[in-house]
């Protein structure tokens, strides 16, 4: 029979693994996207290789350039 503290440590370890896997999946799943929201709650995604999507990504890239790197600690 395992000591109680071992059981607790194992459980914490499992939770940590789950959290790490979740973050990994989230990063992989969140590819670049452009999403526009219209009145009445409608939204539309625009693929990066579409004409409208390409324009949006170019405009976004310029804004990211203007904002620069993060200054806060």
């Amino acid at each position, binding site marked *: 029979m395992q000591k109680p503290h071992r059981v607790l440590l194992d459980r914490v370890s499992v939770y940590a693994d789950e959290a790490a896997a979740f973050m990994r999946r*989230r*990063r992989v799943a*969140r590819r*670049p*996207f*452009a*999403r*526009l*929201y*219209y*009145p*009445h709650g409608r939204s*539309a995604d*625009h693929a990066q290789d579409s004409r*409208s999507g390409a*324009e*949006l*990504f*170019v*405009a*976004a*890239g*310029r*804004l*990211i350039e*203007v*904002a*620069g*790197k*993060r*200054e*806060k600690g």
Partner: protein
Amino acid sequence: MIQEARARVTPGIFADMADAAPAAAPDKESAEAALAFLTEMSPDLRGAAILGPEGEVLAATGEGPERWREDAAALFAAADGAEDVPVEQVHIATEQGEVFAIRNAGLAAVTVTERFALASLMLFDMRSTLRQLASPNFGTPGGTEPRRDD
């Protein structure tokens, strides 16, 4: 039938609401205060700008408000042109960061954040900032300026 009637009437209702447009464009001092508050509230924020009804920059982080004006105008032009319908909100996620833009109360705000910023929270903060800024009581004692607890 009811839905058709609702679709015809609803835009008219929203056009009459206080959110549709401010009575007058807020001054730059108020916009800077609102931007400072937004920056403080959003730990993922890298930079932001608040734009007036004509697209002019009322407040912006860093230097180069002219660049913010040009690039924000380009973003809204691209977004509006995607379906030839004016957008309310824009969210673009790239490898280098994320861009949010919103129109509310006749004003607009554009922010750039780190990757994986919480989108709904960011857009909520931006919307409430613009709404408060457009309020005629913003910045007055007892007005709608965001209160700080510290």
